[in-house]
């Protein structure tokens, strides 16, 4: 379970001003919001990649900001993070990139064969052909492949929680659908808790148990997809309508163009 308590964060301007949010264990939770509202910032505060000015995050009873370095390390072990722009290490091969997802002392213990086996398995899960990509470096991969290597790196260490920062943005429809199916499958098969930040509102509403909308520094809405669609708040409505229109437009372009 992830609990955000009164998270505040400003840069030149305030970005988050008092976010309270709770993601239950085993749940798939989607976070929506217009561009630049601080979704990535909130996700980063979850594991101390950005330190909030005020507030705390608690993960399964561990305080990220008051538990000291050992709690932070334990939290990072539990959590897999899929970055918005893949964030692969560009000097390492796909094999070494994915292997970095294993804890340091595990990696030192593993034989090369065992290491390759673990990486192979993770690449298989994200539908990449291990034989083809293992020895490549990130600049030799397409955007969609990079995203999937990034996902493999996040899951290879068998996290209990996965944080997804826009895993489908910039992907073509086929890959988008594939990644969405993958998120759902991982959540079911590996029984992980997923917190998904996405612009693909329709996709998010389809696959998630609960959704929230971040706007103006706080949560504007938090509830089930059905409640979200029926929410009378005009800002939420505008967001739902625009998302629906975009989805319809996508379908039209897919069919006729």
């Amino acid at each position, binding site marked *: 379970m992830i609990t955000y308590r009164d998270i505040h964060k400003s840069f030149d301007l305030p970005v988050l001003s008092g976010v309270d949010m709770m993601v239950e264990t085993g749940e798939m939770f989607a976070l929506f919001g217009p561009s630049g509202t601080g979704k990535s910032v909130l996700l*980063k505060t979850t*594991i*101390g*990649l950005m330190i909030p000015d005020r507030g705390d995050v608690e993960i399964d009873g561990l305080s990220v900001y008051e538990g000291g370095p050992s709690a932070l*390390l334990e939290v*990072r*072990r539990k*959590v897999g*993070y899929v*970055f*918005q*722009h893949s*964030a*692969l*290490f*560009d000097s390492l091969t796909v094999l070494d990139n994915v292997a*970095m*997802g294993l*804890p*340091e002392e595990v990696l030192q213990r593993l034989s090369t064969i065992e290491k390759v086996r673990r990486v192979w398995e993770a690449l298989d899960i994200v539908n990449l052909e291990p034989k083809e990509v293992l020895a490549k470096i990130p600049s030799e991969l397409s955007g969609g492949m990079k995203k999937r290597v990034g996902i493999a*790196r996040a899951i290879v*260490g068998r996290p209990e929680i996965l944080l997804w920062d826009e895993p489908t943005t910039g992907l073509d429809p086929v890959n988008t659908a594939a990644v969405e199916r993958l998120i759902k499958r991982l959540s079911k098969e590996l029984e992980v808790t997923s917190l998904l930040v996405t612009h693909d509102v329709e996709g998010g509403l389809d696959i998630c148990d609960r959704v929230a909308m971040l706007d103006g520094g706080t949560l504007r809405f938090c509830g089930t997809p059905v409640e979200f669609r029926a929410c009378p708040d005009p800002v939420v409505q505008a967001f739902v309508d625009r998302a629906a229109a975009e989805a319809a437009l996508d379908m039209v372009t897919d069919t006729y163009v």
Partner: protein
Amino acid sequence: MTLPLPAPIVRWLAAVGRVARITAEHAGELGLLSWRIMVAIAQLKVSRHDISTQLYIMGVQSLPIVFVTASLAGIVTSQQGGYQLISSSPQYILGTLVVQSVILELAPLLTAIVLVGRIGARITAELGTMVVSEQIDAFESLGRDPVAILAAPRLIAGVITMPLLVGFADVIGIVAGMIAANIDVGMGTETFIYGARLFWHSWDLVYGLSKSVVFGFAIPLIAVHMGLRTRGGAEGVGLTTTQAVMFMILTILILDAMFPPLLLQ
């Protein structure tokens, strides 16, 4: 509350305050970064493989440019010295002049400036790119310490490489100066060496090499620090890289000016 001060003075005070704040911020962050690097080294968390890669990049790959810089420095000192000293002093003084200039000042300073361009800028751009593409975040999210992985090997390699390169530059600069003296004013090797030995202090060599160790620490430290501060895309990387180069050159010049009062009494 309004201050009973004219606007230009208020603005001036604000600017002074801003500069003081930024200076304190950099100093604090540099101190913290050095501390974290020391801790990583003490905990033996630095990969030997990464250190040797950096030694190769900083050391071996810098040899050609250091060779060119040092030879030209030796030649120019010899020629200009020969021009200034002719008829006013005994010829062998030229040997003293070249050796002392090269060892005390030219080799350490010019090598440092060259390394700012070759190594410092490269480190800042490399780490800056890693920041804006979230690779640094990725290291942290995977429970790795980017300071141990990226900063420490570069700093260790800098501290080892710099004195070696400066030693190399010393030899090249002196030999080039000697050859130039021979060609230019027809001075024999023995006369040149006689002049060099007449005023030789071993301390001078220690002094020059101590400088180089300090420069070898400062360049990667500032480069890493600036790289990790990068914000905002490719433009941000460009901006911090230029800022880092200015910062490194100024620091080198200031440190260089602090050495004589401290160590040459």
